[in-house]
């Protein structure tokens, strides 16, 4: 059972995955309910659940969740709309790559969170600013990764398409894009995960709604149960979006999974 690379069945895999969650919560409960950690610093699981319930039922936390999701998705979709075509062009046409790649590589290292003060000056503390933070945080990453993927397309497939009569634009449309579509979807899934960290940071500063706003408010009240609940909600949303992405890929790219 413990041999390297030995595969594991569906049932045991699921059981083991759930088991770690149980171990984790048990250790947490033991540390807090057992009195080893002060309640001020870390709420126990039961308090967390109670706080979470009150957040959802009494304090309209659902709206905060909705606002945060909208910001992430909005900023991320805008970034993808700009970055994916640009990345494909850069990967396909080397002069475009030579023109943009150095700048994009530089811009990729500019931390999105450091732009927040500047963006507040420019765009205020409204939705535009939140979307811009996510946009800046995602767009350069997507451009570069898509360009690398497209640039690495199998040469022999491109050559085969030329001998079948493809012109230059046809090669992009009928070979480079479909060949890399699953890779691009995977890049988007990855960067969406990063976008979640940017949105929370954006909401911690100058915001009146959203999961991040609730977290920073709770800090003032020393409500660690609420903070932990907020973090767990983000984790759950990430899990669900990951699952949706994977299910979508399976439908869109059956040839990969055949």
């Amino acid at each position, binding site marked *: 059972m413990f041999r390297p690379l030995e595969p594991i069945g569906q049932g045991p895999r699921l059981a083991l995955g759930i088991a770690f969650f149980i171990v984790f919560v048990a250790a947490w409960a033991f540390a807090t309910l057992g009195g080893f950690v002060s309640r001020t610093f870390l709420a126990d699981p039961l308090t967390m659940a109670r706080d979470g319930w009150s957040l959802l039922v009494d304090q309209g936390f659902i709206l905060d969740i909705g606002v945060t999701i909208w910001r992430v998705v909005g900023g991320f979709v805008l970034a993808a709309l700009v970055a994916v075509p640009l990345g494909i062009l850069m990967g396909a046409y080397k002069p475009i790559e030579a023109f943009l790649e150095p700048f994009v590589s530089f811009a990729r290292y500019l931390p999105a969170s450091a732009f927040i003060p500047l963006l507040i000056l420019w765009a205020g503390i409204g939705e535009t600013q939140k979307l811009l933070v996510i946009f800046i945080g995602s767009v350069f990453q997507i451009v570069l990764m898509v360009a690398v993927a497209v640039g690495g397309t199998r040469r022999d*497939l491109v050559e085969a398409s*030329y001998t079948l009569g493809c012109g230059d634009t046809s090669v992009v449309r009928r070979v480079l894009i479909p060949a890399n579509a699953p890779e691009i979807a995977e890049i988007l899934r990855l960067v969406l995960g990063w976008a979640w960290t940017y949105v929370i940071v954006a909401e911690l500063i100058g915001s009146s709604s959203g999961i991040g706003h609730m977290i920073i408010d709770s800090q003032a009240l020393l409500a660690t149960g609420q903070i932990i609940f907020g973090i767990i909600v983000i984790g759950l949303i990430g899990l669900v979006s990951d699952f949706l992405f994977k299910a979508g890929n399976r439908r869109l790219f059956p040839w990969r999974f*055949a």
Partner: protein
Amino acid sequence: MDGLIGDNAAAGAVAAARRSEAARADEPVTGDGEARMTSPKLLVENVSRVFPSVHGGHPIRALEPTSLAVGGNDFITILGPSGCGKSTLLRIVAGLDRPSAGRVLLDGREVRGPGPDRGMVFQSYTLFPWLTVAQNIEFGLKEKGMGEAERRAIVSAYIDKVGLRGFENHWPKQLSGGMQQRTAIARALANDPEILLLDEPFGALDNQTRSLMQELLLGIWEREQKTVLFVTHDIEEAIFLASRVVVMSARPGRVKADIRVNLPHPRHYTVKTSPEFSELKARLTEEIRAEAVLAATEH
């Protein structure tokens, strides 16, 4: 046995082609049709390829000036040890590589880049993995803008010709190597190219599959009459398929011998045990062996 062998066929054909070309230039209006009848389908004129030096090393002369004339509906195999420039020559004909000097003419027009008039089957599996077998075969037809009904009829015909009925909707991933190469041949032929180029297409297949593929390809050629240029390092394969075997020498590559194969058609695999076949095989083995020894001692 002399009837089987014609070493100077290529040189003769090149000269003939030059003459007919000159004739065409003299009387462009009336001479054209006649010239096309006598001129070869494909003409390789003093084509050479030098790869520029990398990191201060010597430039590599992959292909010495090479001339070759291929008549319409000829099945030519280019036989040589690895590194003799035979694939480079084929890629130049395909337009995927540029000659350092010389030129390639197809039906009298100079080759300047890849195009659908020269279908190609590669040694590596180059089916588009995101398309099914039928969609792969259809690829070039779609590029031409052919209507759907016509496309479907052609695809269906080629599915039958390469024996893939029942696998139309499979992904390339789900096929064996032999089936993938059959699809690749169908994909190239469906485009109805002027010439079919094959670069060691069966090189990665096991021996039994390879024999069956040779028979399949030969069967298609016997029925459809296509001009074929087939690169291989397998002597039996070269003889069995060819109407002419062009032997290339090792680095730098050049044509060493040009041997006509007059085995009758339709060819059955049993021809491989005939005395004529054995004789050709013995002769080509000698030619190739000398080159292989040379190539081996060079390193």
